[in-house]
């Protein structure tokens, strides 16, 4: 069965890759299995300078999901290029760098700095970060801000840019169109939904940052809906994610219109999640009558 997928800047042997922030920079899970099995790897967010991240607790468990507020902890883009990414060089698996920042300038700086890396194949532009200049409004919930940061990062980068959309919006298609209009090579969706859990004993939010991002199977129906909507409006490559834990989930994302998928939270539950999903994918695809990954993409769309 042909699992290969061709996306801007990415030749994937299969459509399954770990999601940003759920796989570090690859070292830890390389102790569990051969990273060559992966379609690609999206590494943890990079910012201009090193970030400590938020105080702990940073995670909480919810029904079929989890909240996280890691706070973009990372050693900074320079150190990522010199100390983290080279580890992934020997693997025959494209690496996607996740770009974050608090100002347009920081995003551009990160993207420009990443131009010198030999170890990456594409950027994932994480626009779910709050813009400190605009008083914390997320780049990802304001089409004008999203446009601006996408345009400037596209201009600065030598790599294809996949813009990672936030689901915390009324109209995902408007956001998708905004960033595609200014040159996004693809979309990555969805990031987490903002949530909170309150500790009854402590009478306070469990997560020190109060709110956190909701991920996991709980959000899958929202991810599927958003990908379906965007796919109906736009012909653009989509890396789909949000609650994937099985090969059946992958096929559901493909049917909704994703060209490839990322697996996040499931890695924590099962460190072998990605290779197991990849192993089962051919069988599940053929069980539902598909002859390849390409054959399934967008096939869940009903045309009246």
């Amino acid at each position, binding site marked *: 069965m042909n699992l290969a997928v061709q996306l801007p800047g990415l030749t994937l042997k299969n459509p399954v890759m770990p999601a940003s*922030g*759920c*796989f*570090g920079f690859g*070292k*830890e*899970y390389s*102790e*569990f299995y051969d990273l060559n099995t992966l379609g690609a790897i999206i590494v*943890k967010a990079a910012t201009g300078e090193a970030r*400590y*991240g938020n105080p*702990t*607790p*940073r*995670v*909480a*468990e*919810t029904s*079929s*999901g*989890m909240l*996280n507020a*890691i706070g973009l*902890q990372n050693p900074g883009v320079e150190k990522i290029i010199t100390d983290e990414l080279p580890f992934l060089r020997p693997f025959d698996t494209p690496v996607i760098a996740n770009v974050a920042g608090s100002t347009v300038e920081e995003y551009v700086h990160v993207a420009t700095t990443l131009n010198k890396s030999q170890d990456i194949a594409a950027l994932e532009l994480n626009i779910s970060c709050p813009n400190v200049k605009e008083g914390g409004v997320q780049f990802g919930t304001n089409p004008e801000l999203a446009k601006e940061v996408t345009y400037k990062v596209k201009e600065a980068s030598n790599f294809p840019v996949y813009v990672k959309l936030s689901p915390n919006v009324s109209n995902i298609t408007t956001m998708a169109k905004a960033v595609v209009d200014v040159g996004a090579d693809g979309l990555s969706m969805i990031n987490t939904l903002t949530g909170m859990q309150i500790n009854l004993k402590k009478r306070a939010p*469990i997560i020190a940052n109060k709110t956190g991002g909701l991920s*996991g*199977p709980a959000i899958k129906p929202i991810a599927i809906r958003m990908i379906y909507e965007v796919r109906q409006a736009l012909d653009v490559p989509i890396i789909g994610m949000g609650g994937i834990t099985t090969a059946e989930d992958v096929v559901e994302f493909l049917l909704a219109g994703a060209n490839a998928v990322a697996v996040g*939270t499931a*890695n*924590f*539950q*099962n*460190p*072998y999640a990605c290779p197991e999903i990849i192993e089962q994918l051919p069988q599940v695809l053929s069980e539902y009558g598909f002859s390849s990954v390409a054959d399934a993409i967008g096939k869940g769309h009903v045309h009246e």
Partner: protein
Amino acid sequence: MITKKRLEIISHLQIAEATFEVTVKSDFAAELKPGQFVHILVPGHMLRRPISIANVDREQKTFTMIFKIFGEGTKKLSECRSGDYLDIILPCGSHYPIEELELEHALLVGGGIGVPPLYYLGQQLKEKGVKVTSVLGFQGKSHVFYEEKFQQLGDTYIATNDGTYGKKGFVTDIIKELDQPMDYYFSCGPTPMLQAVTTLLANEKGYISLEERMGCGVGTCYACVVPLKNDPTKNKKICKDGPVFYANEVLLG
């Protein structure tokens, strides 16, 4: 090598109030080191539960965990039975580096669910010929466990918060009165206890073991960090760099 296994429960006992001792079979048992933990999947739950290794039987190829019912996950684990299987990531994290230490006399200081890892540590210390003194704190009499087992390792003192057993008060109240030399102390328990212990024993060398809510348990998600004492703008991961840290390395609380 870290891995994930389905391991069979061969013994499941309640040993104190809401406290359970579970032993599982594992070919990896002999490789587990004191201070390390395992990361257990509880069916129906998104996040695994970290539980320390409380003992290892190399010959039988088994290891033992002791846990207390805290919330839903530990409640479900308490309802398992012999013959059930647990999905476990192991071994996780750092260990008490006793191979590298010059040691004649060790002080173990444990509180509540921080007591279990110290038992396996004490066993290994005793095997090495180290003199072991244990100071253990519990909520109350009904919560006390493994007292005799610790006594077989060396002098053992118990404190309970409510005074229903041993000394009323905290482990630090006992340590203050102890008049014994020590090369190193090893402590595990709730953060307030660790703060009190590390403050009291500020002039001693020691290792402490920390707890934090975890995502991955293997070092990829940055959920479980603790700031460094000498540079609080930096942190380390409790699941990977820890849970055992040199007492002066990390900033508590």
